[in-house]
Structure formats: C-alpha cells, structure tokens
C-alpha cells in the first residue's frame, strides 16, 4: 500500500505531514511485540462514566459526472447514499448493474421513478460496464 500526497490549498503541507505522522510506520523492524492500546489499567476506578456526544458528519460534494447522461442517477440515487462507493466499483455487466438497481428499488425501497431506471442502468453500464 503506497501513500501519495497531493497538496491542495492552504496548510496542505502541515496537514499532509500530520496524516503521515498518524498513519506512517513509527517503529523500526524488530520492535518488541507489545499491544498498542492498553486496556483498562489495573486499579482503574470501578465506575465508568459515559458522556453525551454531539457530532457533525461530513457530507459528500461529489455528483456523478457525465452531464445530462448522469441526470437520472443524480436525481434518484443520492438521497440514500453518496456517489463515491459507486464510482469505485469494478466494471460489471449490464445484467449485474440492472440487478443492483432492482435491488435498490425492491429490497431497499429506493423511490426511483420507473421511467428513470433505463437511464440509470445505461449510465452505470457506460461508465462502470464490462468493456
């Protein structure tokens, strides 16, 4: 697994350095085998206090590329999931893509307009189809 760093914008070098520091390989080969995260230390207090949590989740800003050809998939599919995982799929046959769209509609109740189904399958087959 290799890391490539493409700095974009202000503060990129600092951030990239931070990322490498976090996921890099800090130990020399031959380091002693020790658990990284210690479990609850001996003598820890018997009470365990949970604290309320409030977070913000990032949203995706990626639409399916392709202009008018992507209109149907962008209009129907992004309500339930972002585009990223679709764009990293392997190339699959038209029948497989049709099956995926059918599963989304019938198993997962995606509110996809019946008239949009062919355009979605066409898009997936064109962009992620077996050549």
């Amino acid at each position: 697994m290799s890391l490539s760093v493409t700095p974009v914008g202000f503060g990129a070098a600092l951030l990239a350095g931070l990322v490498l520091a976090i996921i890099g390989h800090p130990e020399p080969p031959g380091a002693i085998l020790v658990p990284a995260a210690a479990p609850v230390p001996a003598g820890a207090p018997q009470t365990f206090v949970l604290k309320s949590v409030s977070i913000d989740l990032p949203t995706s800003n990626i639409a399916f590329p392709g202009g008018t050809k992507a209109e149907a998939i962008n209009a129907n599919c992004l309500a339930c999931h972002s585009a990223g995982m679709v764009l990293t799929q392997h190339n699959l046959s038209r029948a497989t893509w049709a099956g995926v769209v059918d599963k989304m509609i019938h198993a997962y109740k995606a509110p996809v307009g019946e008239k949009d189904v062919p355009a979605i399958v066409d898009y997936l087959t064109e962009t992620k189809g077996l050549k």
Partner: protein
Amino acid sequence: MGEAMRRMIGTTRRSFLGQAGAGGLALVSGSAWIASARAETTVDLPLPDGPRVRVVTTSFPQKAAMILQRTRPPLLETPFEVFDRGVFTPNDSFFVRWHWAVIPTEVDVNTFRLSVRGHVGTELSMTLKDIVDGLPRVELAAVNQCSGNSRGYTAPPVAGAQWSNGAMGNAKWMGVRLKDVLDRAGVKRGAERVRFAGLDEPVVDGAPKLMKSLDIDHARDGEVMIAYAMNGEQLPLLNGFPLRLVVPGWYSTYWVKMLDRIEVLDGPDDSFWMKSAYLIPDTPGATMKPGQTGVNMVPINKMVPRSFVTNLKDGDTLKAGAKTLVRGIAFGGSTGVKSVGISIDGGASWLPTVLGRDEGKYSFRQWQREIVPAAGAVSVMVRCTNNDGLAQPATLNWNAGGFMHNAIEIVHVTTS
C-alpha cells in the same frame, strides 16, 4: 421518514438537478465540506483491478486518518499500517460501516434507554446507569470484522464496498453480558431468537430497518456482550455509542451499533436482514461458482482464520542473504490461533513463527519470524491454523456477496 429528512432529501435533489448539466465533478453549493481547503491525501489500495485510489480523510468526528470508501452513510477503512502497531486497533482508527444514512448525531446519556421486549416476563427500559452500575462488568478482547472485508479482491468482482483488508479491528470490549440483561427481563419458555436494533433508521419509508438476531442459546451463552467501552474509552459515535452488541467470533453484521432495542422472539426471525441479506452458500469455505444455482443459502455466522504480514508490503526491497524479521497479526475466527506459518517457497514448506502475547481466543495475536531471503523475487505467504484445526485455504472463495474471504495472503517483495 421525518419531516427534516424529507426536506434534506428535497434539497439534495434540487442541488444536484440544478447543476446536472455542468458535468464533471460538480460541487454542491452550501456544502459543509470545502474541498479546496483540505489536503487531498490518497492511498493506492493493492486491489487486483478496478479503481484503486481512495481519499484518506480526516473529516470524520472522533476519527484519525481513514480510507474513505463512502461518505454517506459512512464506510471508513483502517489504513493497514495501523495493524503493525499492536494487537489492539485504536478507537480513532477503527473501521466504520453503516447501512442507512439516518444516524443520530447526538446521544444524550441521561435520556437514552435500552428496551427489552417480546417473549419476556418483564419488559425493561434500562438507563445507561442501570447497565453500567447495575450489572456485573465484563471485559473481552475480540476481533470485529466486516462480512465483506477484502471484497475488493473477489474474482470475478461483485458489487459492494470494495474494501481492501482494513474492514476489521480488534478491541478490548468492556460492558455487560447479554445473558444478564435477558435474565433480568426473564426469558419465557419457548423463546427462539433474540433480535437487536439500534438508533439508526432507513432514509425512505418502508425500507427495512437494520435488525439482526441470534439463536436464544447463543444470546445466552455468557460471551455475547453489550459493550459500553472499547479500549478503555466510551465508543466513538460512529462505532456505535453508547452501546454496541459484541458477538465474539462472529462477523460484524451482528454487532449492532447504537443498540437500543432487544426483542425476544418465540419463533423464527423472518425479517429482511436475516432472511435476504448477508447470506452465504452453505458450503465449506462459503464458496460456490459464479452463476451456480440451487445452492442452499444461510445467514453468515462464525468467522474463519486469517493472518497478515504487517511490516512488509508489496514492492518492498529486502537485502538478499540477510536475516530479516517478518511479523504480522493473525486471528483464529471463532476460536483461538493454534499456529501461524510462513512460506517463502510458494507454499512447498512452511516455517513456524513465534506467537505474541495471548489476549484471548477472539483477539488478534501477533506473530514473528526471521527469514533469510534469497536473491531475486520473494513471495512471503502467511497461513493461520486455528484451535479447531481449520487452516486458511490457498485459493480465494467466491460468492455473490463477496463475503468471508480468508485465503492465504501473499506479499511480493524483491531483494537487492
């Protein structure tokens, strides 16, 4: 679907429709995520084909750098380097997988309740204090692995998250026995299954809420836990805060996150996520031929052994003739690690390795061994055998879900 969600979906649709003609990677105006202000770090996953590049993101709360497989609902993979640092996966590096996008972003520990209903003597509504202070505390190290971990290697490929090997993690879970909670409610005679669900909800009306169930005897085996802490801290929200089911030795699909309802059933569970999803062929190694029909399909269940080299990666250069330490992690699946062997002659002979500290039979366990590589290309193969005598197979299994991969891993290195 709540009104807020309807509005959000409406907005999303309008945003995309409004720019559908623009082409390229359109940016949604008003997004909380400003791409131009962030470092775009990427990783090349060593997948056999298909798109290999993924963004490495630091945008998720309570999470360090993670491999972004999907933003919404989140699919975040642990960078593989993390597994070389020890047998416990840090909470902020622990993989994340959600099915539905309606995930509460706030949990109030004072108002949260865990309900126990169904075929019980007394229905319960437990506070977190009832659980943390009112029941015996237990701790257990256990691997949590996605059913589809390593799906990106499936050949021929199948649809789904194209994970590399980082949809897994190991933690010391702290919590209470599910059995103790069920006993407090008093399971009635005739109970067959115990079903679990969390606070997450489908985006659309009528879609199947994520629910999973276990056989009553499994649920009461004293090992299945309700965890309120991992590695000594409360769970990150994306890993299921405040409560998560821990099903040692079983795939992660059963480890229901944000667990807030337990239902004892007096019959089989015919709900979608048990009957129609996460099914594997009922064959040794869960393998079948693409297109094969008439195969009996069953819910995925126990994990199988796996092992990985963590201090070498494909393309590394070693010194020919020099002693070189190779190390990694292994887990036995539904039982402990009996042995880990490595081979540098294509599997003709296997060399024993030294195992690290035993943290329990459901935990990752480190292994290491020195090798002396000959000149030229070297393939380092690693194979775990568990305490049931089950060893990793040489070839990758295939099924339509891309589930339960555990073939022997091979790292290809060269020498200089």
